[in-house]
């Protein structure tokens, strides 16, 4: 079950985890994502940046088919994870989402105890053989979410009682608990204060060695701090994609440059 960690050592750092080809997304009549092609590396942090409404969150939600929950949304094109088309008829979004976890903009702990919040995923996916096993998963996940020390004495207190930053780390730990391979983060720090943001960013950097992390952010500084690769979206188009350092220092496209220098956005 936990062999991904062992595998990680064998894997070439530039291995492609997710590859998208000609992806189009429509909301009713609105063409929200136009012809996006992108290859996302495994074991790296990829940042999606761009002005609000540019489609970066929409594209992120395509990767674990969260857009399925919106009635008017239609996705075309191929998105493959480890070479498997995730929009194939045989794919059950439930299984997919176990593999591709997601953390949301606003911390959204369930109205349950901290323990039950973490145990929720493992329970529904049947990852624990017994109570001791589950306890172990919860502890490991909370440690990986860098929040274990803060909550270990009150695991049965409600998760909603934590501070905003703690809640968001709890949500990250919750996502980690289902043993995903990819972690999608939709502006995970936008509702947090600077100190909590720094903690979460540090955590994201640590997560890199086990998961492929894709993070949507409206903050260019954040993208620069946490990501190895950056994709710039504008008006539904993927304008530029490359190494973060290259995007921020020598952008190829003038729209990217305008955005980075603060002229648009």
């Amino acid at each position: 079950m936990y062999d991904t960690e062992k595998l990680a050592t064998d894997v070439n750092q530039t291995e492609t985890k997710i590859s998208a080809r000609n992806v189009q997304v429509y909301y009713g009549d609105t063409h929200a994502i136009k012809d996006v092609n992108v290859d996302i590396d495994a074991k790296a942090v990829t940042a999606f940046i761009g002005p609000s409404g540019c489609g970066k969150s929409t594209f992120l939600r395509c990767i674990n088919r969260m857009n399925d929950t919106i009635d008017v949304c239609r996705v075309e094109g191929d998105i493959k994870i480890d070479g498997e088309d995730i929009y194939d008829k045989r794919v059950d979004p439930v299984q997919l989402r176990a593999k591709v976890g997601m953390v949301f903009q606003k911390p959204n702990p369930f109205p349950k105890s901290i323990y039950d919040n973490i145990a929720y995923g493992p329970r529904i996916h049947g990852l624990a053989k017994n109570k001791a096993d589950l306890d172990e998963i919860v502890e490991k996940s909370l440690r990986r979410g860098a929040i274990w020390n803060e909550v270990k004495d009150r695991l049965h207190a409600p998760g909603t009682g934590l501070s905003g930053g703690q809640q968001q780390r709890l949500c990250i730990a919750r996502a980690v608990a289902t043993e995903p391979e990819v972690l999608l983060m939709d502006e995970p720090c936008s509702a947090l204060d600077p100190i909590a943001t720094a903690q979460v960013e540090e955590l994201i950097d640590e997560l890199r060695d086990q998961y492929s992390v894709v993070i949507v952010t409206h903050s260019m500084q954040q993208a620069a701090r946490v990501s190895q690769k950056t994709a710039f979206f504008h008006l539904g188009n993927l304008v530029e994609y490359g190494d973060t350092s290259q995007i921020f220092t020598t952008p190829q496209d003038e729209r990217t440059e305008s955005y980075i220098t603060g002229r648009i956005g």
Partner: protein
Amino acid sequence: MPLSWLVLLVLALATAGYFVGRIRVLKLAGGDVRALHSLPIYYGTNVALSTAVPALVVVMVWLLVQPTLIERSVSGMIAPEMIPEGSNLNLVMSDVRRVADGLNTAIAGGAMSLAEVEAMDATVVDVRARLGELGVALGQNVRPEVLAAAKSYRSAAVTGNTLRTLIVLALAVVGFGISFSKTKPDYRARNVVERAVLALLMAAASLAILTTVGIVLSMLFETINFFGLHNWRDFFFGTTWAPNFRGDSELSILPLLWGTLYISFIALLVAVPIGLFAAIYLSEYAGPKTRAIAKPLLEILAGIPTIVYGLFALLTVGPLLVNMFGQSGSLGLGWMSGATSVLTAGIVMGIMLIPFVSSLSDDIINAVPQTMRDGSLGLGATPSETIRQVVIPAALPGIVGAILLAASRAIGETMIVVMGAGAIAKFSANPFESMTTITTRIVSQLTGDGDFASPETLVAFALGLSLFVLTLGLNVLALYIVRKYREQYE
């Protein structure tokens, strides 16, 4: 002067005041509206309001107070020993009122003169026959003390009415005069009128309080009367409901409460699962089209009057159940002997409550933030796992509130149980038996010719007060829970 004439006269005076006030101020300002402090209509309205409002308020107060005053002074004329065996002061007083009305009719119709009435002596004249000739029917012969009381009742009422007319008209005229004399261009008419209107608005809003006070007081007084005639211990802790006219009725609320709660329980057993699942389906699964059709259709069930459900219980569901569970029923069980039963009323009431539960739960489920669902779906939970393990627990307080509101509706529901539940008060756990409820007994004790001084009638007020307290408690609790719940997600 009859009341309607008096009111019309005051209103006519007020209307006249409106125009007079308007014309006067315009004339004083030399026709130049700009010279006025307020628009002309405010000067008119000021005069109209000053004329009508105090006068009409006095009319209303008078209507409320006069009967009590007269009743009190006249009932003082009837000594306790004059009350015949098996009767009481209230009954005698209603006789007095009827005779007084008869005398009034006689005088108004010109059949008797005032002097004739005053001279009438019950020991000499057969009052019943005399009034009977004039078309006033009396149930029994009139005793002298009743006639005397009736005469003074009548004359007090006449004096009162005359006084009322005079005072009210005087007030109207004075109001008219004062406001008219104040009508000058620099008079701040708008401010005065607006203050008066605000006062009227406030009065309207406080009517809600007045209604509650009225409900509580009207039932409280009669309940106190009831406990004066009947042991309160029997009412609250007795085990038998057996009213009779021999004077040894056993009137305990407990068997009625049992029937009420049992029927409500069955109703909730029907309504809560169906309503809740319907709400879940509508809010979580149904597409906009299904929702647009199914939701209003379900809500039609809530708009159907309860009398229709009552008839449905009595004539359709009851016989259907008897056909299944009765003596010669299709199942051959012989469990049910009549169409009215706990089950009949419970099932039909449950149907009535389905939309109530579903639309309340629908609102409450929709109030659960979408981010909560996203969080669960994002972890790979199926929609049903999300609903059962995240949405419902999050919405639980609100749903409990909704169920409590539905329970309060079920407990207070009248027509369905009057027609479908039966009339036998007993403690039984058999849902095929007919049982009775608090509301059913209120209806049966207060309809028909009960006299308002017997415990068998007065018990209805005690039952009503208990029902009011019970449902009020449930409502306050439910509304509190729902409000807390909503605040949590705002």
